[in-house]
């Protein structure tokens, strides 16, 4: 019996030496394939983009790109001298505005379709239409509607105007983005609502809570985490959206809607300055990453995990 009890201990001590990996380390070792994939998919292209941003890569040097002249921070200096800062401002303001408008719409739509009623499935399906339509289709339809002699101006009568050029183009971009993107917030909010257990509603009903306290003190706290996460993802999606402004306004776009992806596109694919466009992309990434980091720290999306630890 004594011998039988000792053997597993001996094995446990001997095993790490034989394999060179402790049990504590094993989970990390298992993550290696994912890590390799991350390096190949994210780190290598990012590293390449940073390298390209430091060299003078254009149509003249493309064929022998390894030998392209090294410019150091030259492309970065030039990118700040161009319309990049204006583009970052347009992109960020448009993205934050679109998110701010879509959140109440999405949450309200989720609440409307939370309780069962006749025809709810149809309403839910209709709500998803903007989300399932390809961006290209959405932009093409809106482009037609927003023409100077299009249906939007026909409806607006005297209030109509030029929507695809000039200052109003900014609001046209926000409008179309909101129309296409609100169902994402709706889906995230609806998923969160589904996770609220029925006992919670019953308990609040037993306590005599009316609809407003029930909404603000019972339901919305459950939505906080998923909706804050949705805000983050939606804002990033808005910032990165290229198809919508490209199809709506074409290239070159009016200055009011020269968002970052459009500027990088024109610099890359029309001016053929790959080094400069890479520098623009890196600068944009850094400028956006800073507030995102602050946001992530501030909203603490790991709140549930912390509660579980307690």
């Amino acid at each position, binding site marked *: 019996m004594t011998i039988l009890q000792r053997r597993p201990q001996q094995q446990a001590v001997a095993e790490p030496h034989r394999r060179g990996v402790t049990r504590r380390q094993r989970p990390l070792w298992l993550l290696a394939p994912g890590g390799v994939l991350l390096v190949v998919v994210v780190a290598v292209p990012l590293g390449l983009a940073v390298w390209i941003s430091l060299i003078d890569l254009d149509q003249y040097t493309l064929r022998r790109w390894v030998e392209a002249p090294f410019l150091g921070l030259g492309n970065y200096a030039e990118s700040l001298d161009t319309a990049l800062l204006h583009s970052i401002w347009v992109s960020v303001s448009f993205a934050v505005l679109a998110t701010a408008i879509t959140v109440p719409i999405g949450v309200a739509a989720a609440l409307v379709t939370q309780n069962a009623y006749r025809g709810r499935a149809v309403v839910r399906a209709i709500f998803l239409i903007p989300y399932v339509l390809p961006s290209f289709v959405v932009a093409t339809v809106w482009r037609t509607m927003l*023409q100077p002699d299009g249906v939007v101006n026909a409806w607006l009568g005297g209030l109509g105007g*030029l929507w695809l*050029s000039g200052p109003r183009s900014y609001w046209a971009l926000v409008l179309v983005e909101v129309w296409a993107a609100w169902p994402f917030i709706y889906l995230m909010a609806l998923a969160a609502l589904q996770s609220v257990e029925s006992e919670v509603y019953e308990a609040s009903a037993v306590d005599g809570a009316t609809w407003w306290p029930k909404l603000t003190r019972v339901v919305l706290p459950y939505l906080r985490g998923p909706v804050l996460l949705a805000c983050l993802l939606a804002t990033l999606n808005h910032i990165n959206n290229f198809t919508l402004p490209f199809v709506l306004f074409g290239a070159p776009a*009016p200055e009011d809607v020269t968002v970052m992806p459009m500027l990088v596109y024109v610099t890359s694919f029309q001016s053929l300055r790959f080094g400069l466009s890479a520098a623009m992309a890196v600068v944009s990434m850094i400028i956006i990453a800073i507030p995102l980091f602050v946001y992530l720290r501030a909203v603490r999306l790991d709140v549930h995990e912390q509660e579980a630890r307690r």
Partner: protein
Amino acid sequence: MRSGRMRLALALAVVTGLVAAVAACGGGDGGSGGSGKTLNVLIGANTQYPQEQQAWQKSIAEQFKAQTGAQVKWETFASANDELTKIQTSVVAGSGPDVYAVGTTFTPTAYATKAFVTLGDQEWQKIGGKDKFIASTLGISGPDEQHRIGIPWVGRPFVMAYNTELLSAAGIQHPATTWDELTEQAKKLTNGDQHGLAVAYKDNYDPWKFIWGMSVQAGNPIVDGRTARLQDPVVRKAYETYFGWLTTDKVVDPAAVGWTNSQAIAAFAEGRTGYMALTSALAAKALDAGAVKGKWRFALLPTVPPGAAARPANGVEAASILSGDNLLIAGYSKAKELAFQFVKLITDQPAQLEIYRQLGQLPSNAAAAQSLQSDPNLKVVVEAQLKSKATPFSGAWADVQLALTNAVVQSIPELAKGSITGAQIDGRLADAQKSAQSALDRVK
């Protein structure tokens, strides 16, 4: 030990497989004989006549196989972006299509990459000689006669279309030959909801062609060596004329500030517009499907600059930009001899007439073009092809073109309000000059 060997064997198998796959991706079957070999050809997808294009590709592939024994593997690109991406990746990797069909204005950019075969006398002979092509179509094949990379394939010269019934009703005997005459005729044709001109102000490709045409006719080539000449009275006059049709002459539908070329053609096809100011032979099908069927004809774009009754001595008789497609043979190709045979096949008279019949693309082959002149409507288009002038052969041209277009894009709010001041035009021209000169300064 056994599992270690198995892992080693597995690793070797994976590496071998990868090497084989990479080798296969490289393609490139060398030699001049064709049997069992494949030639990769990249051309633009024809969205207007997709079925006809497939039929043409099949027919050419069969002829090529009968002639050389080699297969043709077609690749198509849907947009200029796809085309550029494909060229970039192929140029960097040193493998990809053997033959490219690229837009004429893209040829200078392709030349700048130094990735394509420069054609000497021997190479021209292999494809049937330079003389078989319309002389003007060689105008954008290279920076000079010794450094040509582009082989003219098809032409799409720009012309105007006019409504014969409306012009006749307005007492106009013949279509305008000067820009001032065009403006005057457009004024006569404008009445109520009928307009003299259909112009696509919001198009991303049309506006610069007007400005370039009017400027070179007045003697300003826009790019003079390594100097941009956009801040120039001639260019200013061109913009004033182009904008003036809408703001001062009021001969264009105000909704045109939102029109692309296809929308302008659609408006003309409704039958309430005198002229469609810029189109090509490819629009014939759309026009025949509209209310103008049987009531429209093509006409040459004016070749006398605005504000003048005759072209100045240094002016160029440019009826259109040299528009169409050039064929390029990749420098990395291991099947260059096959590529030359293929290029000869599709630029010889029979194939050139076949592509015209199937897809409406105008021949670059002089004999084929000559044989089409019996159709009076087509005669005008062929004449436009003959009088086409190449845009400057510079790697910076894409940026210059972009700057010229951007000046229009940013002016649309003023055009919509119905007035644009000289100072505003000057401001836009200053921006365009800066951008164009900066691109020219980078030319290597």
